[in-house]
């Protein structure tokens, strides 16, 4: 993901990243494509072997690098290709989700979902909905690095 390129006012298009598991959601997204479903083009997919591989750091990094929203998706509980990866991931995401909530992070920027290989339609709905919600929120400015980097202790200590 490249640097935050300025966009003309009033034409905000969210940049979104989706971290998806290889076995279910990626295949589901593929199905959505081959079924020629039309959906929002804002999402870039990063394919991982399993939701169990998705460290919350990935999500933080995506936001740091300029994403306005993130989707995390994998196999439905019980369907994990590695038996229990998504169960472990679910606990981790639950804690992460609640922590972000406590920090006041805008919840609509982060979407967790289970999408199976046959749920191309569900994937389209998840994407369209997630993009719509982030579009409504506007760009993610919480991490505006350049606004602060190089400035002095001054001004932010207040």
């Amino acid at each position, binding site marked *: 993901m490249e640097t935050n390129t300025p966009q003309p006012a009033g034409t905000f298009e969210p940049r979104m990243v989706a971290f998806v598991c290889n076995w279910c959601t990626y295949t589901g997204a593929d199905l959505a494509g081959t079924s020629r479903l039309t959906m929002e083009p804002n999402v870039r997919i990063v394919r991982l072997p399993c939701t169990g591989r998705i460290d919350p750091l990935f999500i933080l990094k995506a936001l740091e690098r300029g994403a306005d929203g993130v989707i995390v998706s994998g196999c439905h509980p019980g369907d994990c290709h590695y038996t229990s990866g998504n169960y472990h991931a679910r606990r981790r995401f639950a804690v992460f989700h609640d922590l972000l*909530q406590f920090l006041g992070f805008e919840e609509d920027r982060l979407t967790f979902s289970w999408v199976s290989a046959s749920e191309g339609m569900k994937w389209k709905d998840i994407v369209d909905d997630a993009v719509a919600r982030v579009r409504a929120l506007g760009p993610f400015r919480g991490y505006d690095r350049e606004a602060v980097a190089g400035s002095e202790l001054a001004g932010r200590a207040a």
Partner: protein
Amino acid sequence: MKELQDLARTLLSDGTVQVVIGWEDGPTGARPVFVTSPEGADKLIFDTRCVHNLATFLSPRRSHVARLGKAAVVVKGCDARAVAMLLRESQIKREDIVLIGVRCGGVQKDPASKEPLTAATVADKCTGCDVREPHLADHVVGELPQAPPNDDARERFIEELSAMPASERWEFWQTAFARCVRCNACREVCPLCTCERCIVDKTQPRWIEPSAHPAAIMAWQITRAQHHAGRCSDCGECARVCPAGIPLDVLNREMARILQIRFDYTATDDPEAPAPLGAFRTDDGQEFIR
């Protein structure tokens, strides 16, 4: 106090241990002390100023302490939770340490405080204490004092924060984090930050940038809290050390609450207890997943 000193003297003179890690009366209040000879045992104290979690000296990162030989450590009931976690994560072996438990009726916020223990001066971590009688210890000394005065200011603060609109909470934490200078003191004092190389020090790839700008500060603080989920013993040393006064213990406390609500887990001094994030139930809540 005499009971503690006598025990330390015995352990040192019969060669059970080479060092007793306890508290002494320092120039600015109570502080950790390392007693290596029976004569030195007279220095040992325990009173309400002994807020420090001495389990942190057992961390394998502190090789200069390990060099002294086998250690006996004086622990309050709450400190034993950190020892239990070190045992649970195979950072130390039970037979390599002697635990001297002290019965505790609460400690001050400030180890230099000469005030009597009241709801205003008592450390946040003492509220609702259920380990005045330490478990896990090889020896337990002292009389069981009264329960500490309760001050639920921190709990109330967490409730207030939770009741705020998200944007105000975000504002609160952004303001607090804006003071962070990324000194990593919170990590260095933590008894459970045992990683040989911390994620923030890793450069290939660089997951968390080292600068003090919002992205990096948030990434660090979230990661720190996340890595301590189900591990933190709520000793509060991170918040006590923070040169910027960031209420890190509030974050840790909230994590504990999340673990309690979601997985019915509370910090424990049982070294055999399963780690909540190393386990799962097929019916774990997933209302946040679509």
